């Protein structure tokens, strides 16, 4: 789909430039205000008592001793707030009721005059448990004999399109079929099957979760939060407490210290709300410790994925069947929609005539899995992209060539049935191939190259609104509920308003989200803000501009169509000479009490009926990685020589921020690929700290070549799509494919550790030795593969 707007050679003032981010200075100088800097008179501090069992019935909770402790202002348990909350499936309690379903679940909370007192009081709460059998593995959890984690699953309220299976641990089952897979497999010359698994990953944002809640006697609730999505949170709270949305005000802290999907839903907020529900008229703060981030916030869904592909000898893919299990932990959280997204893209961004995908979201007795950068993309891509190389290898076809042959291009039909448009994935792969000198330059012994690509849906269809408020002096406030979580949204949205309205970038300031003042936005997630809120902000700016031009036209006795605004001045298009500043236009009309209000709302309209989350998307996040590695055959260690990271962003509105996203994604992708791992023994979790949970440091960062691909989207602001969500997604399989290219071992389970490589190398060489010994009994093999 061509964007006619973009075919013109229009010069932009703010778009496509990289001004200093609007948050850069305040963050670099330490002046930026985060929620921990916010203090209220009489504020109480809450702490949460957490379950020590993975699955247990709560027989009794005795809070009497804790309540009597000096400094304690109240203790709350699940019985005090007997309601359920959740996004797509309402199964979660504010504090556990009747039973606990994971180790680390909140059982009771204390509010006190300071954190130390609250923490000490926790030790005075006596809880009697009856331990129940627990289940941790998703494939174990779907067996008929597995302990049931939610007996009431069938009774929970849920969004349309979500299919919980009552009497099982499956809280959503998603399936999708295109063509006839049985026929496709029957036509195949070769069928290749693989199984891949991924583990947990935590966001490890610099700032931990926090909520400050105040509820008055009239059930009016105010929540100050680090939450990424104030309106979604407001709805979740109002639905749960059965109070009107107008009674719930969610105010975001000016800055949120990192998100990556982790700051959605009710986490620390849940405990703060539970306490405030009981202890009225006092702001109560709950701030998670780093340990709680690991045990009681959310993680990325562990997954088990089976792939089966049928191919012709010439490399044509005839069919693909995918079976996916996402372990969502003790409560559904965003599991049902993650499963849906993972399912839609489960077969990969490839034009395959016959596809069958089944994806199950499975409860286990672990901490909650939820949204995390990529939102099932990393799990799905790890499987389908490792599998693609495996299939290419079995066919003896170059893996990049194999991908280029099958990858979606405009006009293809997606597995979901949607016609593909604005697809820049092929260009991502081609550019990476060029930069890597694919097929030309060899890297030498024990070195290899790998590529992988990915697609991921943007959540569709969801709306965003914005107001543009033009001040007396011509400066502009942008009222939008998109949260600045470090991704750069404030800057990009201000750029859009500046461009559309014709004012300098630094005249525009975005307001801090507050549901009582900034207008509706569904969420700052899914890399949707630049596109959706960008469109809303652009429309609001255009509306304001239209009003200003109309006023100016009256003053200049001309038509508004003949006027334009640039640099904050209104001028006649064909005669640049005479001009009026925006302030003059307003002043001449209204004296000293002038304003212009622009409004914008964007909602993507699709041609298919939608019940909740569509399987047809307004755009796809598309990208690819190339990796060059060297493997040490003695130790199994991998040295990354270089990473190539490409994404189709539609149009780079702020190129240096796009590059930063590409680089940051490499760090998170590397962590998932090589280092990060939750260590469990039974129900116990052994590495809840940044010392023992290994996120990459600056020293782990390899050389990165960022590649921005711009395949403009007709409906995107200036052609832009999104980027931040998926810059990590295809890195792990690209790395695994490079390792295979270097030393011939295929790793199926993340993370890829040196010992997995070493023992896989030994297996390969033992197999070779055996083959050689079978052929020639006199041959003696060297355990490292015969070469030294």
């Amino acid at each position: 789909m061509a964007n006619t707007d973009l075919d013109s050679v229009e010069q932009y003032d703010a778009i496509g430039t990289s001004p200093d981010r609007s948050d850069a200075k305040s963050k670099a100088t330490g002046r930026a205000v985060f929620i921990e800097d916010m203090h209220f008179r009489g504020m109480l501090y809450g702490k949460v008592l957490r379950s020590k069992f993975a699955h247990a019935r709560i027989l009794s909770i005795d809070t009497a001793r804790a309540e009597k402790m000096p400094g304690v202002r109240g203790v709350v348990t699940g019985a005090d707030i007997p309601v359920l909350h959740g996004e797509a499936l309402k199964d979660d309690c504010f504090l556990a009721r009747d039973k606990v379903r994971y180790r680390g679940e909140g059982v009771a909370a204390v509010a006190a005059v300071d954190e130390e007192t609250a923490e000490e009081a926790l030790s005075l709460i006596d809880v009697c448990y009856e331990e129940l059998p627990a289940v941790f593995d998703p494939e174990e959890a779907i067996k008929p004999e597995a302990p049931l984690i939610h007996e009431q699953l069938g009774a929970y309220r849920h969004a349309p399109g979500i299919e919980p299976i009552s009497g099982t641990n499956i809280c959503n089952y998603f399936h999708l079929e295109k063509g006839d897979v049985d026929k496709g497999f029957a036509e195949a010359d070769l069928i290749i099957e693989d199984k891949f698994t991924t583990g947990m990953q935590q966001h490890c944002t610099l700032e931990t979760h926090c909520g400050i809640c105040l509820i008055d006697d009239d059930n009016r609730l105010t929540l100050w939060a680090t939450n990424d999505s104030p309106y979604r949170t407001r709805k979740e709270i109002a639905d749960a407490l059965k109070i009107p949305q107008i009674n719930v005000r969610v105010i975001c802290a000016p800055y949120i210290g990192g998100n990556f999907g982790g700051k959605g839903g009710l986490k620390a907020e849940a405990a703060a709300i539970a306490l405030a529900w009981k202890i009225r008229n006092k702001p109560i703060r709950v701030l998670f410790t780093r340990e709680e981030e690991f045990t009681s916030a959310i993680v990325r869904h562990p997954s088990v994925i089976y792939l089966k592909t049928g191919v012709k000898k010439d490399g044509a893919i005839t069919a693909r069947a995918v079976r996916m299990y996402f372990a969502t932990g003790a409560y559904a959280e965003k599991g049902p929609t993650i499963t849906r997204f993972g399912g839609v893209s489960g077969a990969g961004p490839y034009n395959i005539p016959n596809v069958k995908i089944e994806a199950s979201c499975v409860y286990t007795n672990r901490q909650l899995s939820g949204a995390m950068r990529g939102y099932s993309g990393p799990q799905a891509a790890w499987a389908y992209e490792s599998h693609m190389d495996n299939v290419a290898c079995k066919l003896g076809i170059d893996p990049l060539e194999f991908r280029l042959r099958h990858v979606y291009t405009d006009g293809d039909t997606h597995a979901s049935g949607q016609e593909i448009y604005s697809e820049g994935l092929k260009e991502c792969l081609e550019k990476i191939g060029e930069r890597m000198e694919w097929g030309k330059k060899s890297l030498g012994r024990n070195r290899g190259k790998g590529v992988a690509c990915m697609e991921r849906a943007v959540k569709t269809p969801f709306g965003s609104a914005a107001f543009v408020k033009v001040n007396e002096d011509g400066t502009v406030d942008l009222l939008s509920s998109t949260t600045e979580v470090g991704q750069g949204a404030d800057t990009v949205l201000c750029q859009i308003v500046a461009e559309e309205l014709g004012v300098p970038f630094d005249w525009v300031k975005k307001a801090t989200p507050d549901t009582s003042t900034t207008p509706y936005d569904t969420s700052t997630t899914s890399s949707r803000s630049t596109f959706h809120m960008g469109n809303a902000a652009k429309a609001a700016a255009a509306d304001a501009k239209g009003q200003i031009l109309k006023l100016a036209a009256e003053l200049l006795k001309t038509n508004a169509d003949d006027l334009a605004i640039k640099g904050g001045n209104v001028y006649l298009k064909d005669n640049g000479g005479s001009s009026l500043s925006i302030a003059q236009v307003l002043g001449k009309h209204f004296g000293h009490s002038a304003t212009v209000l622009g409004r914008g709302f964007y909602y993507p309209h699709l041609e298919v009926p939608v019940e909740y989350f569509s399987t047809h998307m307004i755009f796809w996040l598309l990208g690819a990685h190339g990796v060059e590695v060297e493997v040490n055959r003695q130790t199994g260690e991998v040295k990354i020589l270089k990473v190539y990271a490409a994404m189709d962003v539609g149009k780079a509105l702020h190129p240096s921020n796009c590059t930063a996203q590409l680089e940051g994604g490499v760090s998170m992708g590397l962590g998932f690929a090589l280092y990060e791992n939750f260590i469990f023994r039974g129900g116990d979790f052994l590495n809840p700290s940044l010392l023992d949970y290994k996120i990459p440091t600056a020293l782990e960062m390899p050389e990165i070549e960022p590649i921005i691909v711009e395949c403009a989207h007709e409906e995107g602001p200036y052609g832009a799509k999104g980027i931040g969500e998926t810059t990590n997604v295809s890195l792990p399989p690209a790395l695994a494919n490079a390792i295979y290219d270097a030393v011939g071992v295929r790793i199926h389970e993340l993370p890829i550790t040196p010992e997995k490589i070493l023992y896989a190398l030994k297996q390969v060489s033992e197999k070779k030795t055996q083959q050689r010994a079978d052929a020639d009994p006199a041959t003696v093999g060297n355990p490292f593969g015969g070469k030294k």
Partner: protein
Amino acid sequence: MSEACKTAFGEGPKAQIIAGGTDILPALKYRLKTPGILIDISSVPDLDTITYSEQEGLTVGALVTLRRLAAHKDVREKYPLLTQAALSVGSAQLQAMGTIGGNLCQDACCIYYNLPSVSRQGLDPCFKLGGGRCHAVQGSKICHATYSGDMAPALLALRACVTIADGTGENTIPLNELYSGRGEAPHVLEPGRILKGIQVPPPFHNVGIYVKMRIRKSIDYPLLGVAVNLLPNGKDGALKDILVGLTGVEKSPLLITPPDEIKDTYELEKQTEIMAQAARSKAHPIANTSGYSPRYRREMVSVYVRQGVLQALEIAAGRG
């Protein structure tokens, strides 16, 4: 110093010594240790000096930070092994705060012990917490917490000694005698005895290297640390002498001295293999880290010793 020793003696186990604080503060935060008082020795005079002479070798005060030690001209020139080991400790921030004395006295680590208090709830107290079991080696009668300092293997391989003050006087012992072999209390210093300084004998054409296995290039404790100190230029390119220090694989740091058979061998490869196997046989890593399996770590001991010898010889060759 005598005031510090006497106070520590008087307070007994209630007191903990603090210098740079990089080892004790996380333990306090996790409530692994709940001392009644902390004795801050950072104001004790003359404990932050480094002196070197060709006759006496190197003397380092206990309060010298790792970063200062690493950067000292004589250390860089005469004992590059120490510079290298010091720069491999934790991160730059930890090196800037952490002292050499504190590093040698650092507590042993175990993934079942070094847990924040909430996550420890589900586990019965282990030996190291005063309880009656070891979670890492189930059924064991002793604590298996692993000594994980980076400086000790390097200093052991350099045959260093340490001076201990007790308030009335001081005595000097070989470094390996500082270690108890007990996971719950890895060094032998009783309350009232404080590590004062380290002496390293003069270098003698030896070459050293420290190779550290860890998941990340920064922050992490060693999953295995191998210090190799060797004397090259023996007959036919063989080694004249070699010492190997190990960390991260036992309850104490280990000094591996050459077995007798090595002296009868004039082949470098054989000598290396003998040392590699000697080191491997002494290493008993267990599943108590956030890193790799004991099987892999043990296998890597010999690989790392071989690597260390090769790298040290390269340095020697480069030095001419």
